[in-house]
């Protein structure tokens, strides 16, 4: 059962000093040899692991495509655990694509997204949280998201859970010794220490879980809708946030009739931004559609930017809107601060207010930090361990519940075998987190994430 040899450009596309084309699989070295001639005349297949050779990438007419360095890794000592050749050629999309095309002609097939990582995982080179983090890196849409995934890749999750695990294993071991040697004069268990240990584990699990929601927002972005009555400057705000004229702006009320959507990075956060039609009573059928859609967006959004014209007093449309967003996560944006302020801010004191001039761009930074703050991402330190997917959160959550049950059993005065059952549960959940214990959930995840078994 031999797997095909795969290849792909391993460096980000775009201008850069060098590009790396990675080839992995049983035949990686053979494939590379067909398209790479060393200047020394030495064959790549004669090179040992971690050895490099300078040479040229050639087409089937032996015409040079580029000068390059080929670095040979021999299984299992490579990223994927298979034979790997990495060809470092000159940077730039065109050259890298040409080299890749040539490699594919020589017998490799194009790697699908994450396939190198999948192989690394299956060959035991990465634990599950690390593999997941690489998948996270590949699909990261912002700097902060990439940073989180890098943290996980470096093993922060494994390290943090290891710490909790060790504490729990220590607990489980003393419980076992206590039961197995009834006749020995070993000292009785210190229940206070026990309770303290469980408290510590509880706090650590709780902290890990609290990072998840913030982490998810950073990773996946947050659905954010700009709402407000017509002509308060919603589309101007949209354009300010994305730095281009995404929405058509006129001084005619009701210019935006449908929902206009785009993705922008604001500080650490990706906003899946939707500019909506101004909400007001209208007889225009087409505009009414837009208004209905806007209302739907309010329901689905995780964050609302409610825009008001600070040069006008609040009217009935404004007040209706305020009523409908009262229970949502939202920021009230008072636009047009370049004009004379008329609006009475006291009527808005239950909301967080940011004053801007979308036209001039003033207040942009304040708005950004307010968004980061309200999404709780502002509190995250770049060095925090952050859980990066639902599976991980579920594992930690189960550990948390089990530790909590163990604590309850202990406090209630249940016998220690009952405490032990709960501790065992917590241990199992954490082992599952890092993939050290294989369960059906982990298997499902493997199949889901790495599209294996085909």
């Amino acid at each position, binding site marked *: 059962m031999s797997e095909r040899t795969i290849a792909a450009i391993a460096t980000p596309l775009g201008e850069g000093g060098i590009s790396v084309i990675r080839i992995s699989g049983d035949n990686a070295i053979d494939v590379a040899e067909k398209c790479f001639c060393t200047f020394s005349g030495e064959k790549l297949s004669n090179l040992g692991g971690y050895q490099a050779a300078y040479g040229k990438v050639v087409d089937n007419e032996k015409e040079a495509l580029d000068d390059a360095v080929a670095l040979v890794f021999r299984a299992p000592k490579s990223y994927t655990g298979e034979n790997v050749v990495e060809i470092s050629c000159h940077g730039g999309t065109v050259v890298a694509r040409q080299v890749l095309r040539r490699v594919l002609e020589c017998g490799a097939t194009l790697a699908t997204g994450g396939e190198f990582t999948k192989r690394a995982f*299956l060959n035991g080179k990465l634990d599950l949280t690390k593999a997941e983090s690489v998948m996270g890196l590949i699909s990261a849409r912002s700097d902060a998201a990439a940073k989180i995934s890098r943290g996980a890749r470096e093993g922060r999750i494994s390290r943090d859970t290891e710490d909790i695990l060790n504490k729990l294993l220590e607990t489980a071991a003393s419980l076992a010794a206590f*039961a197995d040697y*009834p006749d020995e004069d070993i000292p009785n268990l210190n229940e206070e220490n026990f309770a303290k240990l469980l408290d510590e584990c509880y706090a650590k699990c709780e902290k890990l879980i609290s990072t998840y929601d913030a982490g998810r927002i950073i990773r996946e972005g947050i659905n954010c809708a700009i709402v407000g009555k017509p002509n308060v400057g919603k589309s101007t705000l949209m354009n300010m946030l994305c730095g281009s004229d995404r929405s058509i702006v006129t001084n005619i009320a009701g210019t935006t009739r449908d929902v206009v959507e785009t993705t922008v990075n604001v500080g650490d956060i990706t906003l899946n931004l939707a500019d909506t039609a101004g909400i007001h009573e209208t007889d225009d059928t087409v505009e009414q559609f837009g208004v209905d859609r806007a209302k739907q967006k309010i329901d689905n959004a995780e964050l609302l930017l409610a825009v008001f014209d600070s040069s006008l007093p609040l009217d009935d449309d404004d007040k209706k809107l305020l009523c409908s967003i009262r229970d949502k996560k939202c920021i009230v944006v008072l636009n047009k601060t370049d004009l004379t302020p008329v609006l009475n801010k006291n009527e808005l004191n239950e909301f967080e207010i940011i004053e801007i001039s979308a036209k001039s761009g003033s207040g942009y930074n304040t708005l950004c930090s307010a968004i980061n703050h309200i999404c709780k991402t502002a509190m995250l330190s770049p060095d925090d361990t952050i859980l990066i997917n639902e599976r991980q959160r579920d594992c930690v959550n189960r550990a948390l519940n089990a530790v909590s049950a163990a604590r309850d059993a202990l406090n209630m005065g*249940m*016998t220690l075998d*009952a405490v*032990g059952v*709960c501790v*065992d549960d917590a241990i199992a959940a954490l082992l599952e987190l890092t993939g050290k214990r*294989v369960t059906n959930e982990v298997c499902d995840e493997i199949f889901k994430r790495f599209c294996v078994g085909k």
Partner: protein
Amino acid sequence: MIKEYLAEQYDIAVIGGGHAGIEAALAPARLGLKTVMFTINLDWVGNMPCNPSIGGTAKGHLVRELDALGGEMGKAADATTLQSRMLNRGKGPAVYSLRAQIDRREYCSYMKHAVEKQKNLDVKQAEIVHIEKRDDGLWHCITRLGADYACKCVILATGTFLGGRIYIGEVNYESGPDGNFPATELAASLKKLNIPLRRFKTGTPARVDRASIDFSKLEIQDGDEDTVPFSFSTTEKPQNKVVCHIGYTNDDTKKVILENLHRSPLYAGDIEGVGPRYCPSIEDKIVRFADKQRHQMFVEPCGENTEEMYLQGMSSSLPEEVQLKFYRTIPGLENVKVMRTAYAIEYDCIDPLALYATLEIKEQPGLYGAGQFNGSSGYEEAAAQGFVAGVNAAHKILGLEPLVLSRSSSYIGTLIDDLVTKGCSDPYRMMTSRSEYRLLLRQDNADERLMPTGYGLGLVSEYEYNRFLERKKLKEQEIERVNNTFFAPSKALNELLESRGTAPLTTGCRLADLIKRPQLDYKCLAPFDKERPELPDDVCEKVEVEIKYEGYISRQQAQVDEMLRLENKALPKDFDYTTIKGLRLEAAEKLNKIKPENIGQASRISGVSPADVSVLLIYLSK
């Protein structure tokens, strides 16, 4: 060369008449197979060459499980109990463990008679010196006198007899336990079959004269007031006939031992065999736990009709005169007279990774192992394996499904799975911590877990099975009733609650919820429970445990269900794992050697990582 003669033919031959051999012989005979049991010394069938007791943590569970399946050990122990104690009361029902002092001679008599009386079973005093499979497809067991017994299956239950060698100080000699002959030639015969043998060792303390002990300097250890039998079929509570005593070593003991350590064969490097980590000799304890002030010693009577006393915790292989010197440093033993000297014994046993879960040797169809031969330690571990090997040999001949008990069903299943999957590097002793399902594998519910299996095998009688069904029905009815009984607050009830340190009632409360409170139990609420039926003690115990621990039991059941899902993913037999790409070589080799039945078993093999398991799963899904 001795002249061989054709003796009788049997379905099954069992080599050894110890705790493993007895169960291995009784089970097939009871299933109607023509069986023979060979023992080197017919006076010592069921001998206890070490402690005169049965049970203890996890071992007590094994005895009850074996009883539920239809084994003999529990009945014999109940009939010969000198003192009975339930250990770990107060640590929770998962770890309650029954332990009984046994009259050693009486136990042998009981077992000897049991095998003698058994239909289809012949018992012979004979040393098997050679076994081999011949062209007739049968295993031939040759005795020292040249008798050739041809059998379809052979069960090796050789204990410490196989290649046995005793060590006492600088002295060592070939011997079985308790002055019996060793089985030396059989070891050589097994090596010819390429069976992977290795050396383990174990040891036993001195037996001393009761009259030479000053009991006034020792603490008394009484039996339980309210005793519980091992066997579900025993209807009378065992009587406490003796007391045990506890003494302690001191600095002088330590000094004598340390001064003479170089004379211990273990420290001098004479013994190559690996001893049990969990049952160390006194010199081992003193070296390994150097900062411990004192070590415990239990003085246990060996029987009602003997003055020999066993010194539990004091096993040693130091020279005889050193033994006497250190025993005499212990308060109460100042003038002790040793009747039998402590010794270490080294013996041959198999690497259990060479066994299937049926206890059949993978490369030798029809040949089974049980007990110490399989690398375990302890009478109870031996008996449990003997039973499983016996049933499986019988089922193989009868063409029936093998008996493989799961880890979640029993300690017996856990024991065998550990042995054949993880192997062992020292004599394997059963402990509650070996099981991940302690709260389900309780000693009180061994009948519910295994009696249906025992009945299905045909080794539990209709009568006992009906009694079991009746107990179960009573328990279920009572749990139902307790769940639907409500107590109104009353002055008397609240007084009880407060006296026990738990909140008084202000509104009505379900009886079950009161039992769930750790401060209360089923019994103490009886005066307020007008409708409570008269129930046997064991039923009351089950009702209490199942109600009180309901939440924790279901938590554990969920763990079992999770495991079973992996356990249900079967792996192909006779498959070359080196052909699966992605498996590390070490894992592939281990898998080829152990040939796991399913993914669950594969995941427990040391050297098989979770990544390897993922690869197997992916392979299976193709």
